């Protein structure tokens, strides 16, 4: 792929990227969330059309207009979010769209035979007759792999394949990948996990903010170097310069266990404490339990074990409204889905959690004059750009919507403010504003829990950094005594070999 460019409204996802993959190699594509790796591969797979650049496959220049064309060229994709029909069997999923026929019906016998053959050839070990919803995630992924092999793929793209696997399944997958390249296939591995790159990739191209930074031989590098290339050194914004004077414990989480629908522990005996007057930043790659942790604290998700205490009171599995009343505010990570009712006015959104309380309502009747007054004050104080209080929230820009949410949450003066990816998708000005507000809360002696996928943000404003991995807090660091590489390594599951950059010493006081 040469000089590929792909734009979306407002963002250049791929900016002049050149990628070269050889036969029989595992080529890793490394980058943070949002760097542009998936976009690039979607271009290769034909789901997107590039705005610039060209693609050459096996020495020929090609135009890949759709997944079928990609398939004909021997390119197959193993998706991060599996494209499998739950109700169908393994075989049915594999042959969908390319069904072998005998007369008018599907030749299921032949199909099963072929699936078994392929499965044995590459050591994939799947049962052709089981339904997708009854098999493990690891086996589901192998079905995805088989889909590509069934169609004769020679170039396989793996999109974040280990995101949902257990360590054991990850090892199995690495073995499978090695076997595939031994049989002459080429693999492009999209990932952010350094451990796996070191374990199985031949070469690695690092992508950062839409650009290709470098291509290296894995044998000539190490996780630290890769981490620094991935994370980069960027402009530093607002720093948290105030002296650190933590108060008493505001939020205490002990031994928390949260399970998902498949009874998998998404939070696995997690311990965490947030004190008054501090900003605790939770760093981690998306999918390691951050979302579920926040949902557990705010009462949106059931807790199966452990406890959560706020100011000494037990709020485990309490109702959301009660938790809010007890002094918790939450800036949700998806402002459109969870933060605002877009069709309501900004004014009405300002009281989404408090509309039933005085002075906004009396005797069950809404007092819109009070709501309006309140909203106007907030709009002014927090610089929310909107034509009027009655403008529907939908009409505001993302930054202003977020400012409105922050205004609402901060104004309640909560003892604990939870901010989930508060600056996602925002411009520099809005980001700065939001950081200022978070620091203000800290100054007032309140507790702030910040969850973010942006390492810069965490580094700049947190007093302590907790790294979450696989549903646990694996380490807590002092931002002044650590650096991006260390955190990057921890985020990728790579434990630190030594060093005393921990903030645990504060805890012991």
């Amino acid at each position, binding site marked *: 792929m040469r000089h590929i460019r792909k734009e979306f409204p407002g963002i250049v996802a791929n900016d002049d990227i050149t990628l070269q993959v050889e036969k029989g190699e595992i080529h890793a594509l490394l980058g943070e969330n949002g760097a542009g790796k*998936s976009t690039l591969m*979607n271009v290769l797979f034909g*789901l*997107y059309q590039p705005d610039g650049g060209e693609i050459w496959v096996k020495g020929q220049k090609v135009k890949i207009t*759709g*997944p*079928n064309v990609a*398939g004909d060229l021997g390119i197959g*994709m193993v*998706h991060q979010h599996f*494209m*499998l*029909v*739950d*109700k*169908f069997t393994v075989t*049915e*999923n594999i*042959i*969908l*769209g*390319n*069904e072998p*026929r005998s007369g*008018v*019906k*599907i030749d299921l016998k032949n199909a099963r035979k072929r699936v078994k053959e392929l499965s044995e050839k590459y050591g994939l070990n799947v049962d052709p007759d089981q339904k997708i919803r009854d098999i493990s995630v690891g086996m589901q992924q192998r079905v995805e792999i088989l*889909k590509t092999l069934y169609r004769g793929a020679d170039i396989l793209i793996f999109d974040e394949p280990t995101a949902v696997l257990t360590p054991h399944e990850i090892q199995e997958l690495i073995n499978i990948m090695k076997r595939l390249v031994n049989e002459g296939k080429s693999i492009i591995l999209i990932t952010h996990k350094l451990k796996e790159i070191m374990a199985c990739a031949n070469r690695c191209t690092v992508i950062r903010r839409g650009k290709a930074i470098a291509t290296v031989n894995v044998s000539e590098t190490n996780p630290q170097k890769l981490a620094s290339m991935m994370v980069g050194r960027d402009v530093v914004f607002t720093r948290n310069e105030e002296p650190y004077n933590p108060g008493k414990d505001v939020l205490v989480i002990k031994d928390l266990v949260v399970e998902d629908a498949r009874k998998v522990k998404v939070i696995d005996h997690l311990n965490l404490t947030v004190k008054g007057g501090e900003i605790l930043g939770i760093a981690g790659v998306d999918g390691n339990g951050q979302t579920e942790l926040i949902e557990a604290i705010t009462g949106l998700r059931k807790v199966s074990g452990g406890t959560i205490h706020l100011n000494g009171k037990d709020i485990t599995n309490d109702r959301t409204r009660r938790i809010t009343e007890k002094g918790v505010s939450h800036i949700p990570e998806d402002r459109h889905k969870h933060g605002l009712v877009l069709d309501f006015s900004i004014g009405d959104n300002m009281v989404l959690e408090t509309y039933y309380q005085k002075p906004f309502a009396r005797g069950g009747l809404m007092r819109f004059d009070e709501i309006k007054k309140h909203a106007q004050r907030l709009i002014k104080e927090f610089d929310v750009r909107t034509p009027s209080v009655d403008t529907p929230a939908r009409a505001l820009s993302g930054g202003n919507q977020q400012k409105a949410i922050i205004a609402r949450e901060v104004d309640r003066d909560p003892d604990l403010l939870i901010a989930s990816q508060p600056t996602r998708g925002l411009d520099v000005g809005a980001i700065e504003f939001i950081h200022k507000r978070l620091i203000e809360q800290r100054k007032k002696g309140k507790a702030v829990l910040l969850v973010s996928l942006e390492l810069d943000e965490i580094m700049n404003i947190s007093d302590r950094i907790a790294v979450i991995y696989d549903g646990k807090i694996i380490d807590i660091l002092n931002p002044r005594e650590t650096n991006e590489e260390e955190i990057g390594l921890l985020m990728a599951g790579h434990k630190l070999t030594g060093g005393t950059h921990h903030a645990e010493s504060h805890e012991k006081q």
Partner: protein
Amino acid sequence: MSLMQILEIIIPSAVLSATPLIFTALGGVFSERSGVVNIGLEGLMIIGAFVGAVFTIWFEHLGLGAASPWLSLVVAAICGGLFSLLHALACVTFRADQTVSGVAINFLALGLTVFLVKKLFQGSGQTPFIDYRIDKANVPLLHDIPIIGPLFFSHIAYTSYVAIIFSFLVWYVIYKTPFGLRLRSVGEHPMAADTLGINVSRMRYIGVVLSGAFGGIGGAVYVVTIATNFGPTTISGQGFLALAAMIFGKWNPIGALGAALFFGFAQSLSITGESIPLLKEVPSVYLLIAPYVLTILALAGFVGRAEAPKAIGIPYIKGRR
């Protein structure tokens, strides 16, 4: 009254009531399996019933005699399919709310057909009665078989056998052919189908048009076997009942067949209940509401989980990743 005699009364009556439902429910299966909710089955049956009456009369005038009702079934299929294109257009291309579109289809079908009837038959609210209906018959040879013969091969219209055969055919198509696999995939996980190169929109159009065709046949069958004419109240709830049968049958053609037979059975009991000793005691209202109550229970999970196709009701938008 012996059991045999009771059954000999009930079975033909049940099958007769059930047949229009079977056809329409099969249509519903095609549409909903592809992911498009079709509340408009009632309207499609109305179109079919209208065509059934009008074209039978017209064919009779042309001198086609006993073939008239059968031919009208074919025309009903075509007209139903065409009419359902409106629903497909609204739901697949315009991504309208599928339920609202279905309700609109029902209104439109009723208004249009009644208007046309008045236009065609000098202001009369109903069509005249057809001369040649598809009557109950005894299958030659088969009906002489002891026990089974009198029960299953006597006094049953041929259309009912067609319906049952169609059920198995539809089952075969949906579960054994590539087309069926793709249709189902589009209703369960359209994005997966899309990444495998299947044209989701086209599949959904086909599903909806097939539902129109089958619904049309269902309505026409009702006219040529039961009502023998068409008016504003000819089709009144059968479409919804067929919808319920489809849900009760868990979106499976054979299940829909069974459910439709069951509903037909319930309906016939309320009609023939007078002549049957035990049932005389049961107030007819219970038999009348039985199909509806059972559907609700089925949906609530009491009578086994009724799992709709996963992606039903959600317009598919390409490229949302």
